[in-house]
């Protein structure tokens, strides 16, 4: 088998094994969106009225509206979890084994991303299965057609995680990442409420939502599950992916002076 393919399979297998071994991580990844879907959605349903907006052609329940947002949330948190594990690997030293493999740095990072996307797909599949068993109304049949979009959004959010991992030097600093990256990205998006709803309360908040890459990831997922193609959202997702990945590749360049880990004892 080709060296590149072997390495890709090896890295994906390692991430999946680690994910399976870390049961708490799996449970947390499942409970978080389910909590939103079952508990928060029940409360918000009464408070929020949703008008008919694309891709929907009729009135929908609030639960149905937020499922794509929660799928995006799974990928966002997984991307950050993956970057957290990279910082852990950097601290524990196992990152060096990866970075000293005789393969181009960009390819090794791509393998890490692919592994992270695989894990997120596993989480999404389980989440949708539990949601359907709980009787939540959603376009479950759209999973297959949404798969390519989920892969792209997974790579986009995973690349962002890589950039963050290259900047964050210690695990302790991840609380800051949660507060200043993940939560603002999630809440300032169309995951929980449509942007027009946000505009009703504040124009500038709506503008922030529109500039948020996560909004476009959620919209691309939302349209894909309903068999539609949101070209603008997808284009922005792809552009962001390229920017994040290029930045991550630059950040892990051995020649870069200020990369995390360039210390005298490295």
């Amino acid at each position, binding site marked *: *088998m*080709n*060296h*590149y393919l*072997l*390495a890709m*399979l*090896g*890295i994906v*297998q*390692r991430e999946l*094994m*680690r994910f399976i*071994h*870390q049961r708490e991580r799996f449970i947390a990844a499942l409970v978080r969106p389910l909590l939103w879907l079952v508990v928060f959605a029940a409360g918000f349903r009464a408070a929020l009225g949703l008008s008919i907006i694309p891709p929907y052609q009729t009135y929908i329940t609030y639960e149905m509206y937020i499922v794509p947002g929660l799928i995006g949330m799974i990928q966002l948190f997984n991307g950050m979890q993956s970057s957290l594990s990279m910082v852990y690997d950097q601290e*524990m*030293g*196992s990152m*060096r*084994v*990866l*970075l*000293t*493999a*005789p*393969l*181009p*740095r960009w390819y090794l990072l791509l393998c890490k991303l692919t592994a992270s996307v695989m894990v997120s797909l596993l989480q999404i599949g389980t989440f949708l299965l539990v949601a359907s068993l709980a009787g939540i109304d959603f376009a479950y049949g759209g999973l297959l057609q949404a798969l390519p979009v989920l892969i792209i959004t997974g790579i986009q959010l995973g690349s962002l995680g890589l950039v963050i991992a290259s900047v964050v030097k210690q695990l302790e600093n991840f609380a800051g990442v949660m507060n200043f990256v993940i939560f603002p990205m999630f809440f300032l998006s169309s995951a929980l409420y449509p942007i027009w709803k946000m505009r009703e309360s504040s124009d500038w908040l709506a503008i922030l939502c529109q500039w948020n890459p996560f909004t476009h990831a959620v919209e691309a997922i939302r349209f894909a599950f309903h068999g539609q193609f949101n070209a603008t959202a997808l284009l922005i997702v792809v552009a962001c992916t390229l920017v994040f990945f290029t930045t991550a590749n630059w950040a892990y*360049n*051995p*020649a870069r002076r200020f990369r995390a*880990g*360039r*210390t*005298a*004892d*490295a």
Partner: protein
Amino acid sequence: MEPSPTVAALDIRHVSFNYGKRQALDDVSISIAAGERVMLLGANGAGKSTLFSLICGLFAADSGSIAINGRQLLQGASALAPLGIVFQSQTLDLDLSVEQNLAYFCALHGIGRKTARQRIQRALQRLDLLDRRRHKVRTLNGGHRRRVEIARATLHEPGILLLDEPTVGLDIPTRTELISYIRALPETQGCAVLWATHLIDEIDDADRVLMLHEGRVQRDGQAMQSCSDAGVNDLSELMHQVMRP
């Protein structure tokens, strides 16, 4: 990987590197022949780990060149293929078993599954780890973890093996056992060895010793010869002489 007898296993020429204003390595040149064993002696902070980070491509040199088995590092990551490394700090995945750690390394080095299984079996046997192959690394003691790292570093049959203070923190019996295992590697595996240490008792009189101090190679030669050239009785005295301001 078959080392070529005519090409140096490692060829470092005029390499310099700094951490901001601090010069960590200054015009370092080292050449190691295929199958040769070289001891890199230096106190803590002499630049040994930095040199290793440059050789394995974790950092890029500010100036100079590094070639492994005749291939310049600048030519691409594939130049790292003949390199085996045991880092000073442990680099195993604690949540995976011994076997899974080794299989992961084989995949990174493009070793097919069947060959990987055979090599893992052989390496575990050599280092007396067969009965622990399914143990999670987290459950192993320091000595066993070190053995796993040494086993891993030789799986792809490297042309040169870098060992960064591999025996630090180990108990005396494990240390003695590993020293004799590592010393035999050029004969048993046919690879060159660059062994960084600050422990003089790990060096034999006949060994070639490179003495690194403040980022510069201060001495390069056979241990006994270097001592007699400097007019001292042993390496300990030589080290003090080199380190004297």
